[in-house]
C-alpha cells in the first residue's frame, strides 16, 4: 500500500503491526514522557498480527526482562558496560535468518558515538526490524578524539526509516517543563500534570523508499489503543498575504486585481504536461513523437 494514498492512521497501524517497510524505527523521548507506552503499543500490535514474531531485547537500562517477552523463544540481553559485539554475535548468530525478528534497543544513549554504526551494522539484516529508543534529555557521550563529528542522534536520525518524536500532552502550555528540559536538563519540582500521561503526542516522520519524507502528528491514547491524527492548526502560508508587504518599502510590492487575473490566465507548460504524465506515478515514461528516430531492429538480438 502506498503511504501517499493511505490515511495517516492506517500508516501508523501498519508501522505498529510491522507490515510497513521500516527496517529501523527510531523513537526519541524524554523522562517526562517516555517511550514505554509507545513500545507497548507496538509490541502488542506486532505480536497480535505475527504470533510467531521473535523479540530480541537489547537492554542498557532495564534490569529484568519485560513481561511481554516469552523467554522460550524471545531473548533478553543485558549490554550495559559490556562488550556488545561479542554478546550480540554469541546470542544472535544461531537464530534462523528467515524468521522475522523485532530487535528492541533501550537505549542508544549508552553507546559511544563512534560505535553506534558498528552496532547497527551487526543488527541490520533483511529479516530484522530494529526499534531503538534515544533519550533527548541525556547529554550525549562526546567522542573526545573528534569533537566535530555529528552527534549520535544525528547519525541515528539519518539512518532511520521512521522516527517517532514523543511529547507530553501539554508540551505547548506556558507552564510545561518540556522545552526547559530539552534546553537545560531536568529541573525540580516537576510539573506533575506533565509527567508520563497515558495520552501523549507523537510526531511521526516516515521516509518512503523514494527518499521523500512524510510528517504526521498523532495523539495516542495508550489505554484505549486509539490513535488520532492531528491536522496542523496553522494554515499553510499561501504567499498571497499582501498585508505583510505594506509599508516595507517606498515602492509598491503588491499586485493589483487586474494583474492577478492576467497571471491566472497564463497556461503553464509544466501543469499541462502533468495532466497525462502524472497518471503513472513517479515512473519515467517515454512518449514517442513523430520526428523521433525509431529503430525497428533489436540491438540486443542474437546475430546467430
Amino acid at each position: 500500500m502506498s503511504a501517499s494514498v493511505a490515511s495517516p492512521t492506517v500508516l501508523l497501524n501498519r508501522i505498529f503491526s510491522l507490515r510497513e517497510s521500516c527496517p529501523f524505527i527510531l523513537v526519541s523521548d524524554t523522562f517526562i514522557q517516555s517511550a514505554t507506552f509507545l513500545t507497548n503499543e507496538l509490541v502488542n500490535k506486532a505480536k497480535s498480527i505475527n504470533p510467531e514474531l521473535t523479540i530480541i531485547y537489547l537492554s542498557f537500562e532495564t534490569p529484568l526482562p519485560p513481561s511481554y517477552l516469552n523467554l522460550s523463544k524471545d531473548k533478553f540481553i543485558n549490554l550495559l558496560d559490556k562488550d556488545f559485539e561479542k554478546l550480540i554475535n554469541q546470542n544472535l548468530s544461531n537464530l534462523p535468518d528467515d524468521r522475522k525478528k523485532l530487535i528492541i534497543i533501550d537505549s542508544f544513549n549508552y553507546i559511544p558515538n563512534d560505535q553506534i554504526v558498528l552496532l547497527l551494522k551487526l543488527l541490520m539484516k533483511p529479516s530484522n526490524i530494529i526499534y531503538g529508543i534515544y533519550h533527548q534529555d541525556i547529554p550525549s557521550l562526546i567522542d573526545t578524539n573528534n569533537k566535530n563529528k555529528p552527534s549520535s542522534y544525528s547519525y541515528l536520525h539519518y539512518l532511520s526509516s521512521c522516527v517517532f518524536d514523543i511529547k507530553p500532552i501539554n508540551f505547548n502550555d506556558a507552564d510545561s517543563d518540556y522545552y526547559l528540559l530539552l534546553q537545560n536538563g531536568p529541573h525540580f519540582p516537576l510539573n506533575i500534570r506533565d509527567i508520563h500521561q497515558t495520552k501523549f503526542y507523537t510526531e511521526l516522520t516516515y521516509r518512503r523508499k523514494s527518499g521523500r519524507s512524510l510528517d504526521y502528528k498523532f495523539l495516542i491514547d495508550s489505554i484505549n489503543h486509539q490513535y488520532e491524527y492531528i491536522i496542523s492548526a496553522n494554515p499553510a502560508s499561501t504567499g498571497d498575504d499582501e498585508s505583510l508587504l505594506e509599508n516595507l518599502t517606498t515602492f509598491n510590492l503588491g499586485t493589483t486585481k487586474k494583474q492577478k487575473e492576467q497571471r491566472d490566465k497564463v497556461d503553464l507548460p509544466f501543469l499541462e504536461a502533468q495532466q497525462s504524465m502524472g497518471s503513472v506515478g513517479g515512473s519515467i515514461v517515454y512518449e514517442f513523437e513523430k520526428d523521433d528516430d525509431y529503430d525497428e531492429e533489436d540491438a540486443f538480438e542474437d546475430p546467430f
Partner: protein
Amino acid sequence: MASTSDLQEQALTFYKNKSNALTPSQNTLSLITHDSSNFPSWLIAGILQQSVSTNNECFLSPNFPSINKESSPSYVYSFTNTIQTYNKYFLKYNIKNNKNLHFTSFINSDAPPLASWYTSIISEIKSNRNPVVIIENPELVLLLDPTVTINKLLSQIQEIQKHCALYIVSTTSTSSSFTSTYLPSILHRSSLIISLTALTTGRADDISGTLTISTGPIPNENQIESRQYSYLISNSAVKLYFK
C-alpha cells in the same frame, strides 16, 4: 493567603494502595532528589519506619490503618552521612535496635572498600526476603574512584536493583559533567520520583519546602499517587499539607 496553621495536616503516601503506602515493589528503582538546603533525612526515617514495622506504622502517615505485615529487612548505604544523622529519628520512633534495620556509611573508617562497594551490598542483601535498600548519593563514586565510568556505575546500581526494592537519594545541586549525565540516566530508570525543593520565594517560618510525588518512566504494578505537598519541619514533628 492561608497560613499552614489553617490547613489540615495530611498523611504521606506514594501509592494508591494505602496498606503499603511507602514501600515500592521488588526490583524497582525509586528516586529521591533534593537540593543542598533540604536533605530528606526525615523522609528516609519515615520510609524505614514503615518498612521495618509489622503493623504499617509510620510517623508521616499517622492515620493509616494498622495491618499485620511482614517486616522487611531494610538497609541504608550512605556516601554522605553517618548514622548520627538519623539517630534522633531512630530513637524517637523506636527503630534504633530493630534487627531488620542496617546502616552502613562508606565514609566511616571501618567501611567496606570502595572498589567492592556494590558487591558487598549484594552479598549482604541477596539472601533476604523482600529487602528494601536506600543508597545515598552513589554518584560520589564517580568522583572518589576515577576508574568508574557512568555506564559502570549505572550497571552496578542495576545489579543491586535486581535483588531489592531500591531507593536512590541524589542531589540536584552539583552540576559537574559527571552528574549532568548521571541524574537524567537515573530518572529514566525510575518508577517513582520524589523531589524535595526549597520554596522559590525564599525562606519562611511556616513552610520548609515542597515535596513532589510523580510517576517515573518505568511502569509500576502499584499505582502512584502523583501529588504535591508543602512540608514543615519543626523540633517536634514533620507536618505535610496538600499544595
